[in-house]
């Protein structure tokens, strides 16, 4: 049987969700028998092609995030929002309460210690969106894995459910945080 292809990426995130994924530890060996990784920080493949599952960490903060997200949506049968930032915008979305103009001015024009003040304007650089958005506000998302980060057990429960053909469900213990 062909292996299930998984792609992963981090948008406006901290890679904490990816680190948590690696906490699967020895279960990664069992997983590797069933899946292979397409575009992902684990493989360094730059673009994804025909995948079964896409795991997205982080919210959408700039135009590049939008393009990446759309590439994933186009190439992944199932797209999953992983972690608080993908689901709600999370920590990066704290800037939503400050106008973008003020953020950029503080960082590049009038902040303490800024030398040669100017707003970076190289066409290579993605532009910032006025607000950080959860990913489901930009493309359709099929599943949401809550947590900051979701624990390795959450990844395991979700992926094994999918791999074994069950509708994924997370038990209360897995999404209970206090």
């Amino acid at each position: 049987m062909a292996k299930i292809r998984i792609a992963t990426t981090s948008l406006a995130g901290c890679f904490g969700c990816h680190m948590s994924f690696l906490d699967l530890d020895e279960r990664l060996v069992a997983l590797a028998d069933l899946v292979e990784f397409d575009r992902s920080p684990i493989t360094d493949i730059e673009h994804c092609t025909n995948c079964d599952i896409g795991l997205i960490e982080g919210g959408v903060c700039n135009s590049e995030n939008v393009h990446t997200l759309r590439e994933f949506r186009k190439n992944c049968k199932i797209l999953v929002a992983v972690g608080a930032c993908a689901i709600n915008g999370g920590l990066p979305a704290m800037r939503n309460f400050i106008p973008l103009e003020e953020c950029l001015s503080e960082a590049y024009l009038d902040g303490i210690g800024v030398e040669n003040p100017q707003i970076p304007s190289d066409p290579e650089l993605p532009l910032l969106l006025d607000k950080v958005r959860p990913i489901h506000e930009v493309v359709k998302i099929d599943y949401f894995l809550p947590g900051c980060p979701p624990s390795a057990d959450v990844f395991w429960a979700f992926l094994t459910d999918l791999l074994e053909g069950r509708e994924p469900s997370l038990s209360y213990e897995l999404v209970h945080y206090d």
Partner: protein
Amino acid sequence: MQQFIQNLAEKNQHQVTHLLEILREIQARYHHIPADAIEQLALLLKIPRTQIISVVEFYSFFTDSPRGQYELLISDSITDHMLGKKNLMEYIVSKLKVGVGGVRSDGLVSLDNTSCSGMCDQGPAGLVNGHALTHLDRSRIDTIAELINQQIPLADWPAEFFQVDDNIHKPGLLLSQGIVHGQALKKAMARGLKATLQEIDQSGLRGRGGAGFKTAMKWQFCSEEAENERYVVCNADEGEPGTFKDRVLLNSYAHQVFEGMTLCAAIIGAKQGFLYLRGEYLHLVDKLQSVLDERRQFGLLGNNILDRLDFDIEIRLGAGAYICGEESALIESLEGKAGIPRNRPPYPVSQGYLGKPTVVNNVETFYAAAAIAVNGGDWFASVGTAKSKGSKILSICGDCARPGIYEYPFGTTMQKILTDCGAEDVLGLQIGGPSGTFISNQEFDRKLAFEDLATGGSFIVFNNSRNILDIAHNFTHFFAHESCGFCTPCRVGTSLLRQQLDKIVDGHGSAGDVVALEELCQLVKTHSHCGLGQTAANPVLTTLERYPELYQSQLKLISYEPGFDLDAALETARRMANRDDAGAHLAQTDAE
């Protein structure tokens, strides 16, 4: 200011329960609640300043930054919109030279929206420094702009601007025969209080606020509590958009309402009562105070009423919060706190105001109870249906020739009511306000009754020129604005509902968006703490059930589209980076 606040605190005997009264006066004088005032008040009332701040932030009539010397609020009810509110607001903005939500640079005038001000039969309506304005139109706005620019005191404004009419078109069982002052009390005393409670039980009277709990049972439960101190509260926080019958009852039948409260006090053994009047009805206060004074002179209020009873009534004003119509939130507000609903049980009948047994009833309930004490239970029960006895007073507004007050026996069909009020070419009705039900023109044989169409009084008619989605949109925004913020399903849920509905109405909806909207509705409905959240999805649910194709037709034939303008979201960054290359733009959907 220090002296003013000190006097204010003394006038209110340093009572924390009077916090809303105190803040109302500070807002009226300074057009905001200054931080210094909060500091001083915290010391005087011996409460933390954060407690005061929480109250200031909760009620929409209190502001922490200065508003204009003339605080102008325009009612945002669907009925005001039907009377041309949107255009009028644009005119006000241009005429007064102040944006919605803003204060003019000279500090003279501020402008904002406010939830339904209860003048639905005489809108577009508004409030200026808390006083109700009716029949607003361009010529009145022209005059108002002049009056404000010349800084004419409100007392010298044309009286007709503030004129509020009763518009009673169809009196029924209760409205057509009033009672003589004191008659209900005298009859009750002569009959015996137990026997009178029996009569009320016999009458089948149920709460007129909408929920319909049996009145006699409520009074009985309260009287049975093992406590010495009890309270009677009249809920006149008539905030459900489209409802204004309590305003009319209090304007023209206040004696009978107060008599009903006094009767309740006699039966349950209360010494103190409160009329919790919504802040929007400030214009009624002086009149109501003089009715109370009159009753004291007649010996129908105060000490030794009919040689049997000590009972008095105090009027307390709200400050712009729909949620305070919920009885436990109302009690919190009476205690001088933010109006956040309590956990129930314990119900107010066992632990209400200051933790003591309290009866909270609607204005119309007390009004009806007084008549029942005079005329007997059978008189009342002879009208209506098996489960809904007596009559119901409706406030009818919207697309009809004669908006105003109508009283009908329960069991009356919608068709009959529509004919009476002169409604033609009707698309549908909103019964019971936004928290109630929308019914289509296929359902006009349905009946006014708790077991069919229940309402606290709101009855809004829409004709075929109206758009269902505009209605759902207005109501959904109303709930998102009025959520008290206590529980997450309602605080976040009502905002998400607003966002999701806006997305569909604005034409950004796609394949799964109506399903997502419906799922969200169910979540908000089933998980919210109180009635506000539990009914906040009704406008969408009741219209979606009847017009699914209307919602579907808004959707685009693509799998997904963002609900916001992606390219516009890059505008600030584009401008600041001085870019306009292809990479500096985004397509709304993934068409590549």
